[in-house]
């Protein structure tokens, strides 16, 4: 069912494949990148369908909430951080929903995780981390909204 939605849009597939190819070329998925630094130069954008929403991490996952996202290259563990799904104006997604993720691929404790900086869902872009990978707290999100600043 989800795949049929992909197949119905040839330009979308082309875009996804291009994006994934770029991601694979720029960030070897098996790269050992165990520290916590967020290298914005390695940032890529991926699209996929939300498979499940984990408000708490499963054993072995890095801290915070996660999305399991089905992409054309397989299943992706997307780390949203502590505040990704918390507070006013937080990201809200449901399984089956099509989203776009921007972030970097890291290998943590031998497992690949996509550290998400922003999520585009329902036409809205949600900033979860800043350019250094520091998480955007609900308070920071609220402050930015008050000031009309885009994070």
């Amino acid at each position, binding site marked *: 069912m989800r795949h049929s939605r992909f197949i119905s849009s040839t330009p979308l597939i082309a875009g996804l494949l291009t994006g994934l190819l770029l991601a694979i070329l720029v960030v070897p998925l098996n790269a050992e990148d165990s520290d*916590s630094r967020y290298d914005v130069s390695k940032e890529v954008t991926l699209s996929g369908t939300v498979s499940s929403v984990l408000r708490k991490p499963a054993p072995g996952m890095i801290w915070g909430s996660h999305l399991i996202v089905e992409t054309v290259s397989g299943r992706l563990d997307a780390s949203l951080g502590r505040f990704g799904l918390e*507070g006013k104006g937080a990201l809200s997604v449901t399984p089956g929903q099509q989203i776009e993720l921007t972030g970097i691929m890291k290998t943590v404790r031998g497992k690949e995780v996509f550290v998400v900086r922003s999520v585009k869902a329902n036409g809205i872009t949600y900033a979860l981390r800043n350019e250094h*990978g520091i998480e955007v*707290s609900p*308070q*920071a999100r609220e402050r930015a909204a008050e000031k009309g600043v885009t994070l």
Partner: protein
Amino acid sequence: MNRNFTSILALILVGLAFGFLTGCSSSSSMPPPPPTIAITATSGSGQKANVGDAFTNMLVVTVTSNGTAASGVTVTFTPAPGPAGQSCTPSATTATTASDGTASITCTANSTPGAYSVTAAATGATATASFTEGNTAPRVFVFYVNGLENSASEGPVYYGVAGAVGFDLGGNVLGGEQDYNDGQNGFTAPVDTITATGSSMTVNPTTGTGTLVLDVSASNPNVGVNGIEKFAVQFINASHALITQFDGSATSSGSLDLQTATSAVDGNFAFTLSGIDIAGFPFAYGGVFSNTSGSIHGTYDENDAGKALVGNTLTATDTGVGADVYGRGSISGFTDPNNGDEAISLVYYIVGPEVLRIIDVDADDTMAGSAYGQGSATSFDSTVLSTDVFGILDNTEDELFAAAGQLVAANTAVGTFSATFTGEGDDDELGNVVATGTPGGVAGNYSFSNTVLGYGSMTGITGLGSIHKLGLYATDPTLNLLDPNNTKAANLGAALVLELDDFAQGTGIVVPQGTIASDGSDLNHSYGFGAQAFVDNGSFPSGNPGWEFDFVGQGTFASLVFTTGGPPTPVDISDPYASFVTGTPDEYTAVPIAGTAAAPDAAGRYTFPSATPFAVGPVGGADGPTKDFTVVVYEAGPGLLFSIDEDESSEWLGTFQEMSAGPLKAMHVKRGPLSQEPIETETLTSRQFGGCRQTGHHVFGRKITSR
């Protein structure tokens, strides 16, 4: 024309005549103008006296009449009590001026510390004179904590508290004041009054474990539980304790130290501060400054959500403590260069001549930290570091890492400002353990400025995960950074550090390492310990996830076997985010901790092997869970150990500080011997799941009836 002129002239003449006549009349019948009576406070203002004591000097006024000393004038003296009721009792409410125009009284401080005024009014004078006086407590402890506030409405957020609390010699709380700042959550108060009523501290003189209760409900009912803050305390000696907030409203770690000075903070200092900026992101500062009669000049670094700005010029003003009796002063002119030089208002509490606890008191941002003196040093070079142990913990709002280790400086020499170091370290970054004590696995460079006193950095660091650059700020080599009043201990100095990489904003300290016994036998002592832990809690309670717990306690190492004291076990765990018992946030007392360490490596690094782990529990009663933590200890010396937890679901940084049993028993605090009586297991079970929530007392096998 002529007619008009004649008329005007006539009017003028009539007017002059009338004026002449009336003037003659008044000069003969009106009284002379009243003399101008003035009163001034001549001497006796600005005094401080212990509660119950008379002020040393008399309160003297001078009354003048038209500028000349006036005798026989009645002067009324009226104390104006401060908000906590602080005042003094005058020897007389009225006094009559002598021939020199002076009148005086003595005044005796009442039982409440604090500043207040005494006004003096003279009969016939329109203005009054005023004296500013202060009642002091015989013993004052300065405290500060920072951690995670547990707000049901706003969610968890960084907060800090700094303050001072005064005691009489019987251990009763006489009063105090504090500054609380949660920045974003709106409970910020410039100064809260701690009232004697409702406040207390009780301590078990054997273990040093106790409870400090501060009542600020009259001035800030939003903090703590309806304005009542409760802290678990673990005294190390009579003048120093580790503390953690212990009432469910927040959890945090900090220090409680005897105050030894209340004024004069001139000198050179190094400092670090950490908190949340105006935009809601974690940020931290570190630097050095000189304070000369309130004029502050220095150099500082800032790391704001990964954006580091180093070498900023610091120009600020220390407005001093004024009449405050708790050593509370303020600093203006500090700014946030990463946010448009936004002004940051700081308040400090003086612990002693070389230690200040500092808190940001703005409503939009919040920070807490300390400044430490640099002593009489006129130069800090590469010899500041030698063989040292360090501990660094990230800001709880960031909570990315905890790190500890040993470093050995090389190629140091007096007059040389750059050198290298090697060492080993442990680093847990969000549960990702990226360094595990590989001997020689850590390396880097460091340097101090040859123009800015004690301002330096550590760069090119390898072997410590994401940590590659630290700000390095030298402190007085004779100063104990963790226990400022205890300068007899080893491990004095050496520096503060600030994470300057783009991934986190941690702060920490570097202290010299002494000789380490290869078999760990030099740890055979009683220790007070504590730690600030970050955990991967996920979302609990729903919509209000939190990620911190804190604990303090007392235990003993004997041949590498660590056990907590008691019974009852002197360990308190503040767990408002249910890290130990799913779904049950609580404050646990009497939690056993045990483990057996392996002999240390050459760097003084101890591990607790998986067969004998650092086991915490059972928590919340005999049927509660026991959690094994992967704990590593670095020994600076027998008196000071750094502990780091490096698990996938938790990380902490803490210390073990050797206790001084003798001085502890001599301390002037309320004794809190524990009255114990066995209670039924069924009762324990019911208490475990809610029965003790209100009292905060969970016990293992025994019921605590008093502390």
